[in-house]
């Protein structure tokens, strides 16, 4: 690594940390209904939404109604995207004349985009029309991210309110997140990206004759508008198959830097918003610090692994599946960011990462997508771990556990455990199934331990709603489309429903005032405990499988073994 590499990493962190309070404070003003700068611009759209849809923005609901609204809204999105793909050949805006999508691939993709996963079993440029990409997928990119924020807001209200059963209004949370946060940032970034060379048009694919005289078909499309929101909304689903390694999605180092920053921007800033909303920015920075420590640790290990020599390739820079303009450092910074946040967009092929860097990517997902995590989802995910941490700390000192003045009782802990177990079960059980069945194994692209890693990564990605892949695995089969589809559903709603239930019961509780005996949740001791709990739960669950996959592969590689 050179000094320039370190400067890039430093710049990235400096901007991320610097923007956290700025954007965090702005989001606080949006979510608490205060005056803000986007109100004069899009305020009329908010009013229009409520008026045209018959929503009373002042009406608040309890957790069950909030959850019901959320599930209905998601279900309708799913049906819409599913049907659109099944009939795309009969729909407009299909200049490449792409045929209808198979039912199982359509199911997988519809679930994938609804759950903010954006796992892609298909290749965009040869599967989906502009119509489906825009009216189907771009929409889900926005609303699935907004759904994540809505769940977070309900949880925050559950924590900060007392003796009430009202958790807010799902429709206003959804609308405000989309109109005032996701949409303005998307328009801004999209224009900048086009300036760097990202395509944005409705032209037919361009057939050209190359310098050597061979024909080449260059795909086109409204890519920039979708790419921006896939980054900002931690969605990750590329317009083209190669995702953000495609020169049309990510043409320059600047576009790369901005796209990388936009993965973590909102999840990081939400920690500050959280702090403001619960009345102590210190609580927010505590969470931010815990996330940042895990992030830097993962990044450092991955960089060491990638820059190390090995007996197979000697001192060659490991450029397989990486782009010249980004080099190794930017590829690894991205792979760490995209797996920590549940984005899943890639600028390098994770399948070809060195075994340890690939493992870190996998671990970032397996830990529950709480290192910044998905928009909204990362923060409510880490609050689940906070509940478990204060519970364990409470057991150790023999006091009733409390968080921000709220007593943590049996119900909250049960729900937290369900939320932690749901995705982990998906990873372990489905991976086990795939790795002993012929229809699971026939999709592999690599033999030996790396084959197991491909399977393990796929189900981690689905359960964590990440969406990146060890993409050699041919996942566009009935078996993978269905199991990964159900994995995504369990990984999404198996957390959202318990979280909203926790929000519901927390809102009803009284707030105990701070006393000398209160267990502090805003200091270094707590940061240490929280990180330990996250690592122990993730480690105990996944270490055996990891040791047979990437760890084994690393050891084999270092003795020069190939498969």
């Amino acid at each position, binding site marked *: 690594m050179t000094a320039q590499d370190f400067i890039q990493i430093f710049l990235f962190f400096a901007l991320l940390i610097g923007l956290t309070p700025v954007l965090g404070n702005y989001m606080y003003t949006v979510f608490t209904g205060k005056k803000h700068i986007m109100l004069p611009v899009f305020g009329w759209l908010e009013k229009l939404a409520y008026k045209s*849809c*018959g929503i009373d923005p002042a009406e608040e609901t309890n957790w069950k109604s909030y959850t019901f*609204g959320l599930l209905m809204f998601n279900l*309708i999105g799913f049906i819409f995207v599913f049907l659109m793909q099944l009939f795309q050949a009969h729909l407009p805006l299909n200049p490449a004349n792409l045929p209808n999508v198979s039912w199982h691939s359509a199911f997988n993709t519809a679930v994938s985009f609804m759950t903010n996963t954006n796992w892609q079993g298909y290749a965009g*440029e*040869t599967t989906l029309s502009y119509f489906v990409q825009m*009216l189907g997928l*771009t*929409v889900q*990119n*926005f*609303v699935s991210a907004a759904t994540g924020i809505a769940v977070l807001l309900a949880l925050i209200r559950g924590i900060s309110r007392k003796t009430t059963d009202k958790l807010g209004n799902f429709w206003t949370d959804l609308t405000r997140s*989309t109109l005032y946060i996701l949409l303005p940032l*998307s328009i801004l970034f*999209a*224009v900048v990206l*086009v*300036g760097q060379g*990202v395509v*944005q*048009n409705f032209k037919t694919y*361009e057939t*050209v*004759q*190359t*310098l*050597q005289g*061979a024909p*080449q078909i260059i*795909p086109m499309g*409204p890519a920039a508008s979708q790419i921006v*929101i896939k980054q900002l909304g931690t969605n990750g689903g590329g317009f*083209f198959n*190669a995702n953000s*390694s*495609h*020169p049309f999605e990510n043409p320059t*180092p*600047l576009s*790369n*830097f901005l796209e990388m920053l936009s993965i973590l921007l909102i999840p990081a800033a939400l920690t500050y918003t959280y702090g403001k909303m619960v009345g102590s920015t210190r609580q927010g920075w505590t969470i931010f610090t815990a996330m940042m420590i895990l992030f830097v640790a993962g990044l450092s290990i991955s960089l060491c692994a990638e820059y190390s020599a090995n007996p*197979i*390739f000697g001192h060659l*820079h490991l450029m*397989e*599946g990486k*782009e010249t303009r*980004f080099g190794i450092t*930017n590829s690894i910074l991205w792979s760490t960011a995209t797996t920590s946040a549940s984005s899943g967009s890639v600028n390098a*092929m994770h399948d*070809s990462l060195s*075994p340890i860097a690939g493992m870190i990517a996998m671990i970032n997902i397996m830990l529950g997508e709480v290192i910044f995590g998905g928009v909204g989802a990362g923060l409510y995910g880490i609050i689940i771990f906070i509940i478990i941490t204060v519970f364990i700390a409470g057991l150790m000192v023999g006091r009733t556990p409390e968080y921000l003045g709220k007593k943590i009782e049996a119900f909250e802990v049960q729900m937290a455990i369900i939320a932690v177990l749901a995705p982990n079960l998906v990873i372990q059980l489905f991976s086990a199934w795939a790795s002993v069945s012929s229809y699971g194994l026939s999709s592999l692209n*690599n033999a030996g331990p*790396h084959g197991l*890693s491909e399977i393990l990564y796929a189900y981690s990605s689905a359960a964590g709603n990440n969406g990146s892949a060890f993409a*050699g695995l041919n996942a566009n089969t009935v078996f993978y489309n269905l199991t990964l589809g159900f994995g995504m559903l369990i990984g999404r709603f198996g957390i959202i429903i318990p979280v909203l239930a926790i929000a519901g019961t927390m809102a009803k509780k009284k707030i105990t005032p701070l006393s000398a005996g209160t267990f502090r949740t805003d200091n270094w001791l707590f940061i240490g405990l929280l990180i330990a709990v996250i690592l122990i739960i993730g480690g105990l669950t996944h270490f055996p499988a990891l040791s047979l996959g990437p760890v084994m*592969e690393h050891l084999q*590689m270092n003795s020069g*073994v*190939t498969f």
Partner: protein
Amino acid sequence: MKTIIISIKIFLFFTILTGAVYPLLVTGIAQVVFPEKANGSLIVRDNKIIGSELISQQFDTKKYFTSRPSAVSYNPLPSGGSNYGLTNLKLKNLVAERKKQFIDFNQLDSLTVVPSEMLFASASGLDPHISQKAALLQVDRIAKTRNFNTIQKQNLVQSVKNHTEPPQFLVLGEERVNVLILNLELDKPDRNITNNK
């Protein structure tokens, strides 16, 4: 029931707003402010489109600079990498093959260190760039094929250097040179390959 109706209505609202109005708005701005880039940075020569500056092409004749290896044979439908793991025997063999091929093709000393981007396939399969070093290693072979004299050859070296893009703002990304642009320079009829950029 009321919830279901609201769900449908607001879903349609967002579909129109974020699925139609937003992409159209961005397209409108993009087509006015950056029309060439929004349309794929296409390169026109003799009134014919010969490719995109951003999408690599296959170059296997001796008179052109060679692009990076591509797992999709430079066919953008669909883009992608090899997805080979580092312990995959196929990858090990491919790298050895490409190394030998690069050295033979360019008639280099067998101990030459071949830049790694010429040995490994890119992520997109469409990576338009190579390093300056990889380009310079090909100059002798191209000059010989095109019967360049010493001055023309020096000009070619200079052309490679002129077209080398430094890291953006001097810190972001890597130094690189666009293969298609270099080859277009080579084909310019006046053979005056000193770039006057």
